[in-house]
């Protein structure tokens, strides 16, 4: 009895180890991305796996800082591709965490908006290290049932008319860049932080509250606690689709933009495959389907032609909008700390 049990166990172990080795022999492409952020939708994973006979494995990040940490501590030679915001690409390039990308091998590369391809964060000298994927903006949004006029200026967020009905993002980057835009300073390189601080303190008595999560915004809006505020483009589009009377505008001063980009990790185990994967991710096939499911704005111009008019209008996929945004660029940590301290000081002011 005993020996039989042992034999069975032995056989089971052998089968298990055999199965494990087969899995290990199968090629695996390791991706780092946010959870539920396009690349991990089952149909996309399946499509790529079948086409290239590879297994796509996702590892998730909770912040860009975590992504950098993953790459610094043992990620090199383990992961193939990752998705940082372009503001973080220069740090990764300088720390030698990335491989150059052969953009000539990417069949869909030329379909990307030239504006995004040309961003300085993506390259060092003539070498390109990152491929733009999706983008979005943070700008003025308001309740069009309450505010009948067409708002065209960010200064509406400082308008005493809306006292007690305004909300503002509790985020030092958005706060300082928005104030800089209103004051006519360069939002990525503000010249007078003192004036920005004053402007932000001046706004406080007019606000209902600050918002931090996207969920806060939609609740405040739906409960009619606020009628105006700065908001995310993607969330505004989603809320409009739900039938909320929300209007999202890029005002005359411009607005804040962000871009997420794909990179190939240094010493990626599957270098060629990594580039093929990025090519698939930026292709119209993938981006169109994801856009219909509610993606952020795709960085590809080719997608425009394949998307229904309403969807592309909702995502504001027009060249004019893209050109008017100030994209959050790379900032050294000393600047980040300075900005955070300014924002804490504003919030601490009674």
């Amino acid at each position, binding site marked *: 009895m005993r020996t039989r049990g042992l034999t069975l166990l032995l056989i089971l172990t052998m089968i298990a180890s055999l199965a494990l080795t087969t899995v290990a022999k199968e090629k695996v492409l390791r991706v780092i991305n946010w959870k539920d952020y396009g690349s991990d939708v089952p149909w996309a994973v399946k499509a790529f796996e079948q086409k290239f006979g590879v297994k796509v494995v996702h590892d998730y990040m909770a912040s860009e800082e975590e992504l950098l940490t993953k790459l610094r501590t043992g990620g090199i030679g383990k992961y193939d591709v990752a998705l940082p915001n372009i503001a973080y690409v220069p740090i990764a390039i300088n720390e030698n965490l990335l491989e150059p990308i052969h953009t000539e091998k990417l069949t869909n590369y030329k379909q990307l908006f030239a504006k995004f391809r040309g961003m300085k964060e993506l390259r060092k000298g003539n070498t390109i290290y990152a491929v733009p994927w999706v983008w979005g903006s943070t700008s003025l949004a308001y309740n069009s049932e309450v505010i009948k006029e067409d708002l065209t200026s960010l200064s509406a967020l400082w308008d005493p008319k809306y006292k007690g009905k305004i909300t503002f993002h509790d985020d030092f980057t958005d706060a300082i860049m928005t104030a800089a835009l209103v004051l006519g300073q360069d939002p990525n390189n503000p010249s007078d932080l003192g004036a920005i601080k004053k402007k932000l303190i001046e706004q406080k008595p007019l606000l209902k*509250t600050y918002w931090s999560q996207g969920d806060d915004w939609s609740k405040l809006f739906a409960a009619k606690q606020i009628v105006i505020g700065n908001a995310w483009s993607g969330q505004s589009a989603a809320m409009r689709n739900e039938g909320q009377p929300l209007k999202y505008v890029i005002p005359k001063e411009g607005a804040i933009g962000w871009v997420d980009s794909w990179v190939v990790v240094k010493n990626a185990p599957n270098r060629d495959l990594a580039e093929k994967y990025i090519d698939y991710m930026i292709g119209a096939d993938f981006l169109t389907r994801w856009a219909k499911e509610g993606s952020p704005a795709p960085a590809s111009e080719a997608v425009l032609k394949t998307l229904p008019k309403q969807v592309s209008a909702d995502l504001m996929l027009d060249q004019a909008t893209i050109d008017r945004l100030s994209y959050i660029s790379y900032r050294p940590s000393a600047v980040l*700390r300075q900005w*955070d301290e300014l924002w*804490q*000081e504003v919030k*601490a002011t009674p």
Partner: protein
Amino acid sequence: MPPGERAWRNTLVLPPAAWLLLFVVMPLAIMFCFSLLTEVPGPTTKAVFTLQNYVKFFTKDFYRLLTWKSITMGVWVTAICLVISYPMAYYLAKVVRRHQTTLLLLVIIPFWSSFLVRAYSWVTLFMEGGVLERLLGKLHLISGPLQFLFTYPAIIVALVHIYFPYMVLTLFVSLEKIDDRLIEAAQTLGSRPWSTFWRVVFPLSLPGVVAGAMLVFIPAIGSFVEPRILGGLAGTVIGTVIEDQFLVVYNWPLGSALAFLLLVIMLLVLGGTAGIRKLAAGRTGGER
């Protein structure tokens, strides 16, 4: 003590001592080291010794302003908890004779739900057009919208609700220990109820008051979740600044320094209450 027994004793002490060393002393020591650096040491960052993080606290007014705000917040919460909990605990310990366990259980039940859930429940309750507004409107106590959410008092209410069970439980324990015969003796000797309470019951319950106050005050001044969710524009306290240093700007050194200064303040308060306790012990003729 025979050597064998001493060895046995040392062995018994070892696990808790190791636990304290590993999970209390070491993390605090690491945090203290961080607080003296310019950066979190990493493969590409160069960390240099500095006192800058502590200097900031004393040169930038708003850090002290926010710390003071957190302390006053803690005082309010503790005082309100005490006022609410004392009669409750007294009732549980000295008046109720049946269903004591059930009633205590009712006090503890809020502990079973996450404090995050409780904070969000208050949002629903306090919201304009929310349950409380409609109720008060029906009772003709207010007219128009209830402007309570996103104010400082809203934070206090949530914190009181979260921490008062600690106060009730510690007060209950110390009130229950008071010998009923002492109260009877006071009454027999002609003491009026109020004077019996002030001169017999309350002094004897002081250790419980102090312990309860500490259990409420210390977490209350370090709180950051409730201020963030319910405080709106008034929701910035030293706790939220510390949280942001760790989670948003990755300035762990400054976050550690601020946390350490808060710890020092708490220790000073604890030292102060030890004095009160001694005083109480003196008044009642010995610690019970």
